[in-house]
């Protein structure tokens, strides 16, 4: 067993007319909360989709817990995409049953607890819910899995500050012990307190990997300030 939960070896992904990832080498250790930070179009989403098997590499390798993305990795990765992917016709309860049916590590009672705290009625249909509520339901579903790797794509993009606090609180108090959280965002100030490490990515290249406290110690500035410096337009 390797120590890294996610590993990229000379990972390349190109789309027609666009090099999305340029020979990325990366190792994300177990048991950390890691921020994947970069401007729009930097390759964050491509990397995340590759990790979830939603894209296939053009060359190189991406390994989850030493395995190429497939059924075995999907069992241990809990993924929150940027889109709301819930099946509109289902009620929250059906959605929970759905997750319980397909993911062995899904904890139903945890999901119901979290729903209750938000006063979301499990009988409600997803079709009738606001976008914000749907996103919360989705986060609850994802965090109710006892996964080894949580991959959260822009979990706090476009929500109000109170919801943002709720989301971050949900993430740090619910990810299972020894699990890794990989979280992509461009809103760094809001998340840097909860991160162990950061990965800066730009134009398909990894620019920097470091721990948050290392950056603060060495540079004497916040990750956010450093980010603004590195990605100055």
């Amino acid at each position, binding site marked *: 067993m390797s120590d890294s939960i996610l590993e990229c070896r000379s990972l390349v992904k190109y789309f027609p007319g666009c090099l999305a990832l340029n020979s990325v080498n990366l190792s994300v250790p177990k048991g950390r909360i890691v921020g994947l930070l970069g401007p729009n179009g930097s390759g964050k989403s491509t990397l995340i989709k590759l990790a979830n098997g939603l894209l296939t590499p053009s060359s190189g390798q991406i390994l989850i817990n030493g395995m190429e993305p497939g059924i075995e990795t999907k069992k241990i990765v809990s993924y929150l995409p940027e889109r709301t992917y819930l099946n509109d016709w289902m009620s929250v309860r059906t959605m929970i049953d759905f997750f319980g049916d397909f993911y062995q590590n899904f904890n139903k009672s945890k999901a119901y607890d979290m729903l209750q705290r938000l006063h979301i009625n499990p009988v409600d249909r997803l079709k009738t819910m606001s976008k914000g509520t749907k996103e919360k339901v989705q986060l609850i579903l994802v965090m109710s899995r006892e996964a080894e790797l949580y991959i959260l794509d822009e979990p706090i993009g476009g929500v109000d500050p109170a919801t943002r606090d709720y989301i971050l609180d949900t993430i*740090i108090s619910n990810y299972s012990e020894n699990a890794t959280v990989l979280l992509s965002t461009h809103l760094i100030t809001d998340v840097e*307190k*909860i991160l162990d490490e950061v990965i800066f990515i730009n134009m398909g290249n990894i620019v920097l990997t470091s721990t948050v406290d290392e950056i603060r110690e060495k540079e004497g500035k916040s990750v956010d300030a450093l980010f603004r410096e590195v990605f100055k337009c």
Partner: protein
Amino acid sequence: MAWDLKSDRPIYAQLVEQIQLMVVSGIYAAGSKLPSVRDMAAEAAVNPNTMQRALSQLEGDGLLYSQRTSGRYVTEDVQKIMQIKNNLAADLIQDFLEKMNRLGFDREQTIDLLNHVTKEEG
């Protein structure tokens, strides 16, 4: 007490200071049990690993101790807490004197001023 974390210094160092403050000011009394790492991390809205690191350092300093099964406690050694309290106070005073010095007050003037201000307030 609310956790107040600045953005330009290492988080764990700030956590260490604030927990020290909580202990010497009696929010966590001598010999009392601390909440779990996860709960403390959630309360401060920081990463549990960072909180763990801060708590470990405080354990190393002797302010906290952990019992394998039942959790983490504040030391029962009141002397130790007082010592840290005094250290913190000394640091604050040192800091204050330095700043006053930069304003152009020497030590005597500073103490005079301090007496004056406290009388007015009193």
